[in-house]
């Protein structure tokens, strides 16, 4: 089945007074994807997200969101996009529910439905008990969750999250990660930017590597990971300290084999997942004890360096 393109960016260029923030940015995001925009600080991630959220005018290029031209139909786009900036801007003098109420009424949610919508979001983001607290009294993590709740208040089709985990402690990051996984499962399209690679590794289905205002590489993780579709990468840990390369030399389906560390090996075999039992049988028949076997996919970090990016933060 053909996947629906939700966001299409062609030759995007954004000029500020003396700086070219983005140039020749091209990428596509499909419906239901969680697209990670990775790059160091100053790579142009925030600028790209701001342009996509219609907040920033671009110098040239062509951007379509759900078929809408971003320049002409920005009002329609604003109705289907939720944007979360890196630092949570809030009104500290408002109570938690009042803040959400402000946006519920701004997004023209019917009066009768506003409170139920707010309560549902407060429950989802574990903020229900804090509903009557002033925002100024909340921790950074809670504020971040509140903003995420606010971003979802009008049930947008697309979420643009700019460094959502910045400034959060490990617990806050974990919580936020779980929330994002939940959102991802609900079928929404998410673009999430970060300069911390591990932050995105768990839940991104596709990725775009950005540096100095340019997209170096983008696509689905499976596609750009370097593992061809008809091959499978396996991580194998054995008990014996032997040279597996020599033993598996006569196994015809082996494409590539290399030692990672100790008794752990990385093996690329022909065929899909169904080829794994056959390999296990071949190895055990040779009298080798398997401690652990796992289908591997290339992580964002490897992809990042493979893309030619030089600057890591």
């Amino acid at each position, binding site marked *: 089945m053909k996947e629906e393109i939700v966001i299409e960016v062609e030759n995007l260029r954004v000029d500020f007074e003396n700086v070219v923030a983005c140039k020749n940015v091209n990428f596509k995001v499909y419906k239901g994807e969680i697209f990670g925009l990775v790059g160091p600080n100053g790579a142009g991630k925030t600028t790209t997200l*701001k342009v996509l*959220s*219609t*907040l*920033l*005018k671009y110098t040239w290029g062509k951007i379509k969101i759900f*078929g809408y031209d971003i320049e*002409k139909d*920005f*009002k*329609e786009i*604003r*109705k*289907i*996009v939720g*944007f979360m*900036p890196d*630092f949570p*801007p*809030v*009104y500290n*003098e*408002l109570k938690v529910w*009042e*803040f959400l*109420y*402000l*946006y519920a*009424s*701004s*997004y*023209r949610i*019917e009066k009768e439905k506003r409170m139920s919508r707010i309560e549902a979001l407060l429950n989802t983001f574990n903020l229900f008990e804090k509903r009557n607290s002033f925002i100024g009294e909340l921790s950074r993590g809670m504020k971040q969750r509140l903003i995420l709740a*606010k971003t979802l208040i009008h049930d947008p089709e697309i979420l643009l999250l700019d460094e959502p985990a910045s400034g959060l402690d490990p617990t806050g990051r974990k919580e936020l990660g779980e929330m994002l996984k939940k959102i991802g499962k609900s079928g929404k399209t998410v673009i999430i930017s970060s300069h911390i690679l591990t932050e995105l590794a768990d839940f991104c289905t596709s990725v775009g590597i950005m540096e100095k205002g340019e997209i170096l590489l983008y696509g689905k993780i499976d596609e750009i990971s370097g593992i061809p579709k008809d091959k499978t990468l396996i991580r194998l840990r054995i008990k014996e300290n032997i040279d597996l390369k020599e033993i598996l030399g006569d196994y015809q389906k082996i494409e590539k084999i290399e030692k990672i560390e100790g008794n752990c090996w990385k093996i690329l075999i022909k065929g899909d997942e169904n080829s794994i039992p056959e390999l296990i049988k071949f190895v055990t028949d040779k009298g080798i004890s398997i401690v652990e076997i796992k289908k591997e996919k290339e992580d964002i970090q490897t992809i990042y360096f493979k893309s030619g990016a030089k600057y890591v933060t």
Partner: protein
Amino acid sequence: MLLELPLYNAFKRIQLRPTRFITTLVLTLFVLIFITFILWFDTYQKYPLYTEIFFKNFGRNFSYIMIILQFLTLTLLGTATVESRVRLDTTSGIISFHKLTPLSPHNLIWGYILGSTFEIYISWSIFFIFGFLGVPLKGIPFYKYLFSSFLIVLSSIFFHIFALMNSLGRPLIYAGRGSILSSSFFFVIIIISFFHKLDIGFLTPFPSLFGILQEKNRIFLNSYYSILNVPFFYFYIPPFVYSLILWISFGSIFYFSSKRRIIYEENPFFSKKESIFLLCIICFLVIGRITGILNLNPDFSFVEKSPSIETKAEFYIFLSKIIILFSSIILLLMTFPRRLDLIRQFIRKKRGEKIFWWENEASSLIINFLILIISVFSIFIIDTYVSLTGLLKSCWLENILRILIFISSMLFFNFLIEGCRLKFEKGADNISGLIIVFWFLLIPVSYIIYALNVENPKLLFMSFSPLPFLIFTGKPSAEIRNSAFLCLIITNLILFLTFLFWKKAKIDFGEKYG
């Protein structure tokens, strides 16, 4: 839906928190009591035994001080508040959240202007209400006080819009915290300019207030204090009319600039169109003033003695009409992009594309439309009645001109209805309706004051008509009646066509979104 301004409600909530509200109230009352006491004490020191003089001076000074306090709170403090709120929101980035909502720019602008100054308005209301005490205490007359306060509100709105435009997209980190009060410095400049007789001083309500609050003076022109009047083209005009022209013309440009700039983060201060508009207005004002000064040769000692500068009622009516038309043209221009946008939406709908529509905004269409229909019908009925009673002068050319103007006015209002309807249909708010109400309220109020001022109760009925082109004193004649009938038929026809148009639009509306 008429007052559904989410930002205003949120700011109101903040400012109505008990501690903050009570502090505002206590501070305001403290200032009030303190000033009253000082005034009473001062007057008592001067006139302890003369009751008549005591009350006269106390009442007058009390009214003056209440007017000054109104200016200080609403105009000065209010402007600084709007500026600081917008700058703070720009700095924190929360303004971007508001931009991303489907709220129209008008909604955001008025949300900021009215919301951030909510507590300022509370203080202002207290000063305003207490200021009425000066009336029974032989202070300034009731209508003069009311009109003065009204002018302060108008000037405040102008400065609030200016502050909003000035602060949009300018966070504190770039401009420095001191610049929160940049609008206040602007005030100082224009107040100084006023004392140096520069036109920029007319942006404050002071020139108008000086004219209005003079003893023996009327709100409109008079020969006693004509030094305060403004020579403009071939007439002397009262300072408040000149101030109104400045507020409306510059205020609308500032408003358009804010409206445009509140949508995006990066935008120039004035667009090309706005710059041209600004230039045109400046040219108009400069030419008007220079022509006025050259033609009228304002040798003030001579002017003061001359009764010939007593301008007739017709001139003020004509001037008011120009102001109405001017603001209506601005409204029409405002609706034009929306009209084009709607055409685009129609084309897309025909192609079968998905159109997003916020259905729950539909209710304000009725309010908006009702206001317009009532207004237009009122104009039509009253003006026709007046023309039929034959109060026109018997000059053919003049009559034809008047009829032409009348028809064009009616046509214009039809356009206005259509524009507002289209504007609303796109899902925008109903600010245009509010502006119209404002003008339909302001102008009649001016007429009432004029009628009271010239002590001519016959003129009071003028106040019911915002379009009193036909209200002139003169003898009735058969020709005039004929003209009036012709006028009646034509305007009826136009109204009927507008009605058909509206009906068709309603059907389209139902088909599209029903």
